[in-house]
C-alpha cells in the first residue's frame, strides 16, 4: 500500500494525486446528496474545461521560452475582448462573428505581445513580477478606454448615455455557444460542448507540432539555458519574443472561446485575475516556471476546473444557509487552489 502510494506520488506528484482524491471524495459526496445530479456536474465541468483550455495552453510558450509563467496574460485577454467588441460593432453574427473576432484579435495581440516581449527582454529575471503589475495597470488603463472608445452598437453601450461599453455584453444574438453547439450531443439530458473541446484539442495539437519545429526546439533551448543557446547560435531574445507573442495571441483567442461559451463579454475589472486561474491550472498539471508540456495543460485544466465546478454545488448542499455562503466558499476554494498551485512554481525538485 505504502509502496503504491510512493509510486503514485513519484509518477504524478503530490498536487495531482491529492486533488484527484479530493475530486473523487466530492463526487461520491455529491452522489449521496439529494437533488444533486452527478452527470450534470460532470458536463458542467466539461464546459468549463473547454472554456478555459486555451487560456491555460497560452502559458506553454511563455514557460518554455524562459519568461516564466505569464502573469501578464491579461494583455492578450484585453486584445481578445477588444476584437470581440469590434466583431459586434461590424454587426456580424454566428460563426462568422466568432471567427472574425479571432482573426481581428491575432494582429492586435501580436502587436501588444511584441511590445510586452520587448519589455520582458529588459527585465530578465523579474518577468513574473513585472508581468503581474503590467497586467494590473493595463486592465485599469483599459477600464478608461472601454468608456471612451467610439463603439456605437446599442447592444454594447450604456443605454442611458449612449456612450461607453457596458460591464457585461450579452452575446446571445451574436456568437454565444457557436463552438459549444458544434457537433454537440446529449448526455443524460445535458449538452456536451463538443466543438469547444475539439477546438481546444486542435490548438493543443498545433502547439505540440510547433514545439517540435526548429523554432520550437530553439525556444525550448533558450528557456532551459540561455548561455547554451547563445553558444549554439540561437538568438535568445528573439525566442523569448516569439514565445511572448504566441502566448499573447493564445490569450486573445482563449478569451473569445471563453466568452462564446459563457455567453457574455466581461469588460473592465473582469480580466484582472484571469491569468491566475490559468497559472494555477497549469501548475496543478505538473508544470513549473521552467518546464511545461501539453500533458500538463490538459491534466491541469481538467483537475482545476472540475474541482471548482464540482465543489460549489456540493458545499452549497452541505451548508443550507442561503446563497451568501456559496460565494464565500467559491472564493475560498478558487483562491486556495491558486495559492496551493503557486507554492509549486519551483516544480517538485527531487535531489539529484
Amino acid at each position, binding site marked *: 500500500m505504502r509502496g503504491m502510494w510512493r509510486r503514485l506520488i513519484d509518477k504524478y506528484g503530490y498536487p495531482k494525486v491529492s486533488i484527484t482524491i479530493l475530486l473523487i471524495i466530492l463526487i461520491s459526496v455529491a452522489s449521496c446528496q439529494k437533488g444533486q445530479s452527478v452527470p450534470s456536474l460532470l458536463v458542467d465541468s466539461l464546459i468549463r474545461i473547454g472554456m478555459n483550455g486555451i487560456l491555460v495552453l497560452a502559458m506553454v510558450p511563455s514557460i518554455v521560452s524562459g519568461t516564466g509563467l505569464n502573469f501578464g496574460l491579461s494583455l492578450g485577454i484585453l486584445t481578445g475582448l477588444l476584437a470581440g467588441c469590434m466583431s459586434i460593432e461590424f454587426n456580424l453574427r454566428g460563426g462568422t462573428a466568432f471567427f472574425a473576432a479571432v482573426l481581428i484579435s491575432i494582429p492586435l495581440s501580436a502587436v501588444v505581445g511584441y511590445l510586452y516581449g520587448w519589455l520582458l527582454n529588459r527585465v530578465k529575471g523579474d518577468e513574473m513580477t513585472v508581468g503581474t503589475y503590467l497586467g494590473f495597470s493595463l486592465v485599469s488603463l483599459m477600464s478608461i478606454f472601454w468608456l471612451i472608445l467610439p463603439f456605437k452598437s446599442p447592444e454594447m453601450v450604456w443605454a442611458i448615455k449612449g456612450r461607453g461599453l457596458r460591464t457585461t455584453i450579452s452575446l446571445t444574438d451574436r456568437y454565444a455557444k457557436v463552438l459549444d453547439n458544434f457537433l454537440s450531443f446529449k448526455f443524460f439530458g445535458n449538452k456536451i460542448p463538443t466543438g469547444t473541446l475539439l477546438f481546444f484539442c486542435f490548438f493543443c495539437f498545433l502547439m505540440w*507540432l510547433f514545439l517540435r519545429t526548429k523554432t520550437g526546439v530553439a525556444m525550448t533551448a533558450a528557456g532551459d539555458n540561455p548561455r547554451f543557446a547563445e553558444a549554439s547560435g540561437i538568438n535568445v531574445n528573439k525566442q523569448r519574443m516569439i514565445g511572448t507573442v504566441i502566448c499573447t495571441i493564445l490569450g486573445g483567442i482563449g478569451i473569445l472561446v471563453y466568452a462564446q461559451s459563457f455567453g457574455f463579454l466581461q469588460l473592465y475589472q473582469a480580466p484582472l485575475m484571469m491569468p491566475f486561474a490559468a497559472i494555477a491550472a497549469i501548475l496543478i498539471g505538473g508544470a513549473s516556471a521552467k518546464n511545461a508540456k501539453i500533458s500538463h495543460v490538459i491534466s491541469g485544466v481538467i483537475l482545476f476546473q472540475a474541482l471548482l465546478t464540482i465543489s460549489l454545488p456540493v458545499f452549497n448542499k452541505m451548508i443550507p444557509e442561503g446563497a451568501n455562503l456559496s460565494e464565500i466558499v467559491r472564493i475560498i476554494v478558487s483562491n486556495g487552489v491558486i495559492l496551493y498551485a503557486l507554492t509549486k512554481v519551483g516544480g517538485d525538485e527531487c535531489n539529484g
Partner: protein
Amino acid sequence: MESVNVIELKNIEKEYFGNKVLKGINLSVKAGEIHALVGENGAGKSTLMNIIFGMPVIFSTGGIKGEVIFNGNKVEIKSPNEAMKLGIGMVHQEFMLLPGFTITENIKLNRERTKENIFSLVFGDSLKTLDIDLMRKESKAALNTLGMNVDDWLPIAGLPVGYMQFVEIAREIDKENVKLLVLDEPTAVLTESEAEKLLAAMKLLAAKGIAILFITHRLDEVLAVADNITVMRDGEVVSCMKREEASVESIAEKMVGRKIERVVHETKELNADSEVLISIKDLKVDMPGEIVKSVNLDINKGEILGLGGLAGHGKIGIANGIAGLYSAEGEVYINDKKLELNNPKKTIENKIAFLSEDRRGVGLLLDTSIEMNIVMTSMQIQNKFLKPVLGMKYFKVKDSKKIKKHAINMIKDLDIRCTGPTQFTKRLSGGNQQKVCLARVLTLEPDILFVSEPTRGIDIGAKKLVLDMLVKLNRELGMTIIMTSSELAELRSICDRIAIVYEGQIQGIFNPMASDLNFGLAMAGKYNESEEGM
C-alpha cells in the same frame, strides 16, 4: 603519533531511491593523519563526505545504515551544526563565502568575538559589540598557519580563487575544537604553486594533531602528503594502502579497476610548408578573469595545438573569443577568409566548433534529454534532424527516429553511461556530461575544434577516453584541434605544438618535448626568445 581514531566509519550503507551508492564502507582516520580518499566520479566519495558532515540531503533521503564513531563515542550526525560541535570542519568544493564581507568577517562568521556593552548587559548576549581587534588577530594567526600573507580586512569579492580556498581552510582551522578537517578537492581550482603551498599547510596542520581527510583527483598530491590512501570504486572500498606501498600507477589502476596506459604518442612530423588554416591577428577578448590582450597566432591545418599557461592569464579567453561568447576585437582568418567575430552562429557555420570549459553553464541543457543536447546545435545551424510534415517542404519538425538513432550511436561510441537517450543531462556525472558535450560538437562535423579544459573534473577513465577521442579525430578525420588546458602534462601528451599564454599574450610556442624549464619560464613570463623549439 597517537594511535587514537578520531573518526571511524563502520559498514556504512546508503541508498538513494533504491539505488545503492555506498555498500558497506569502513574507514578510520587517526589524529594527525592525512588520509586521502580517491576514486572516480560517482564512486561515492561525496556521499561519504556528506554523511560525515551531516548534510540534510542524507536524512531527507532516508538516512544511513552503519555506525559512525567519533572520538570513541558512537554518534549520529544529523546536521552540519552537530558536526561542527563535534569538531568536524569541512571545506567544500564550491566556495561558501560571503563575497561582500572581509576575510576576517568570513573566517569569524557566526563565531564572532564580542565584548560587553551597556545594551548587552541589559538585553543579553546578542547585542554585544564585536571585538574587531581580537577577531583580526586570530584570523591573521589562522592565515599565517597556512603561510598566507594577505590583508585580512580585504573583501572576499575580487580575491583570486586560490586565496578564497585558503580563507575557507583558515575558517575551519580557526575553530578551536576542530579535530577533523574534511577537504573536498581543495586543489582543483588552485595553480600548481598554490597547491604546493596548500599541501605544505596541510602537513603543518597534521603535525598539530588534526586529522585530515581529503578528496582529490590529483594522484601526485596524494603521494606527496597522504599517510594512508583509501581507494573507492562503485560505492565500495577497493583498497586501503600506506603511502610507502602506493604509486600513481597502482592507485590509478585500483580506481578504474583496469590497467590504464598513459596517453603517449609520437608527435606528428611537422612540414615546413604545412598550410596555415587559422591566422589570428591582434586578438583582444574581454572575458572577465581571462582577458586576452593581443594574441597573434598561426595554426596549421591538421595539427593539435595546445594552449597552456597559468589561470587568469587569458588562455581560456582565446577560444571563447573566437567562438563568439565574449566580445572580441581583432582579426581572425580561416583559410584566408575573414571570420566575423562576436557572432556564434557565423563561427559554427564556418565549421568551427567549441567545447566550453563551463560545462554546466554553457555546454549543456540540464533539463533536456541527452539526445536533444546532442543534436541541438546541429539542428539549429545546419538544419539537420528535421523532416517535413505531410510532405510540406517548408514546414519541418524534428525527426525523432533519426535523433534517437544518432544519439544511441553516440552513446555507444563515447561510452556515455546513462539509462537511455531520453535521460536528462543533469542526472549524469561530470565525465558523462562531458561526453555528451563532445557528442554534440562531433555532430556538427567541424573542421576546426576548440576544446577548453576537456578533462576538468572528470575521472581518469573518462579523461583517457576524451583524450584518445581527440587524437583519433585529428589523425583519422584530419580535424584541426586547439586544446586549452591547465594541465601541462595533458597538453604534452597529445599536442603537436604548445603555445603558452602569459598576461594575455603568447609567450612562446614549444615542442611538447621541450624541457620543463622552457615551459616553466614561459608560464612565468620570463621566456624571451619566441618560436624556439619549433
